[in-house]
């Protein structure tokens, strides 16, 4: 376990790990006829799903760290948030390219421009693009930490847009959207509540001490 965590902490091992979903869910099935009867639609869904899992994973890590500050796995994974975010963008970009392929021509692609799934998806992609291009130390320095931080908080808006995107992209999609995003929402709420609860506890203790 220790060795595994140590290995997981290195970039040399973690970066290839981010390509595993592509190999396992996209490339191998594509080569072995494992995408079913509507393969392009399946690829479209799978690239999108991987991108969304990546975004959700990144966003789950901060609250997990707040809730379990000493969990070593959480701490190890937290080092790689930047890489996971960039990977999310790459999968999202693949998803958009796949959408071109799925429609077969630009006319079909742009027939959907004003649809809610298209608008929310495009918004999320643009946010991920902005965040991926500024996911380096140089950008942090150039923007200044606070401005950079605020820029990167756009990811929460992107996540909301993605929930809408998933929910509206197909018939009966809301159950999947709920399954993915409601736990994340719960984690984020706990993250906010925990420090508040701690502060409240301290305040109560101080009041009691004064009273006695």
């Amino acid at each position, binding site marked *: 376990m220790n060795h595994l965590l140590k290995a997981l902490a290195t970039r040399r091992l973690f970066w290839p790990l981010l390509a595993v979903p592509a190999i396992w869910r996209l490339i191998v099935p594509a080569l072995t006829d494992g995408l*079913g*009867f*509507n*393969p*392009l*639609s399946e690829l479209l869904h799978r690239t999108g799903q991987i991108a969304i899992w990546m975004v959700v994973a990144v966003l789950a890590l901060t609250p997990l760290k707040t809730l379990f500050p000493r969990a070593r796995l959480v701490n190890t994974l937290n080092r790689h948030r930047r890489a996971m975010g960039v990977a999310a963008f790459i999968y999202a970009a693949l998803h958009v390219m796949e959408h071109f*392929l*799925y*429609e*077969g*021509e630009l006319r*079909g692609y742009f*027939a*959907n421009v004003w*649809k*809610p*799934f298209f608008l929310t998806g495009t918004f999320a992609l643009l946010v991920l693009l902005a965040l991926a291009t500024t996911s380096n130390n140089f950008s942090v320095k150039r923007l200044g930490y606070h401005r950079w931080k605020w820029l990167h908080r756009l990811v929460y808006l992107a996540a909301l847009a993605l929930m809408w995107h998933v929910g*509206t*992209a*197909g*018939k*009966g999609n809301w*159950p999947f959207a709920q399954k993915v995003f409601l736990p994340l929402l719960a984690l984020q709420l706990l993250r906010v509540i925990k420090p508040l609860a701690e502060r409240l506890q301290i305040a109560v203790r101080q009041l009691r001490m004064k009273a006695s």
Partner: protein
Amino acid sequence: MHFKVPPSWALPDSAVTPESHYCGRRRFLKQIGLGAVAAAFAPGELFAARTGLPAKLNPAYRLEGLTLTKENAILGYNNFIEFSFQKEAPRIEANRGWKTDPWTLEIDGLIAKPLKFEVNGLVRKLGGLEQRNYRHRCVEAWSMVIPWDGFPLRKLIELARPLPAARFVKFTSFLDTDAAPNQNSSQVPWPYTEGLTLEEAMNELSFLATGIYGKPIANQNGAPIRLVVPWKYGFKGIKSITRIEFTDMQPRTLWNQVAPQEYGFYANVNPAVDHPRWSQARERVIGGGLFEGKKATLLFNGYEKEVTALYRGLDLRKNF
């Protein structure tokens, strides 16, 4: 201290057969028997009414110039939300012992005398089956070409002789929460219901299918009897019908109740009228090549000649 020494004949509570299993023991035995018979014919898939199969192709519905979708794709790519929301799962989920033979179809509502048929008997009474190749366009913008075996709905309506007050036909599918676990969900008004105007139902295209590719229709395709209305989106083609009712009021339909702003009563295929959430201008042909792209969707799915008269003076954008 008190010890409870169980007598030698005592059984733990865990050994008690649940009441539902006990009450269903005959059905269980029948399923085993039926399963064995079905397995002898085609391992993995249970089949329904066989009467009249294979049927002869009606040359008026040959669909010249179009390629039939491969049987395996028709059997493997389904929307059957009673069993799963995935496309490739109904093939498995609808064949875990769900029994579709024998199957009783009730016909009632505004007719002189309510009728009841076993599907095989009904096919015999109506004088057999014919094969028709129809385009099939799903509301999700994919399509197939399917060789159905069945009979025109008109024949059944003529047999039922609806009263002059009858203006609509309501179709109801099965309700069996044991076989179809999704029917436990309270978010969907089960059982599946659909409807047509009587005029639509009497149209020459309206078809009740009991077979595909000359074989009894597979469970996942809506065994043993389903509606096929090829100028409408696929969800209008209600599967596994148990009841046909003649009414004077437009019936509520399942998808219309779930999302009225998205799924109208008519649901005619129309490339100019988008689904609120996606374009309907084009469709992906199942079984097409990876780089083939989508093809243009046709008004009334290419059946303009046969059905345009039904909608004269109707605003198709409002009555989607």
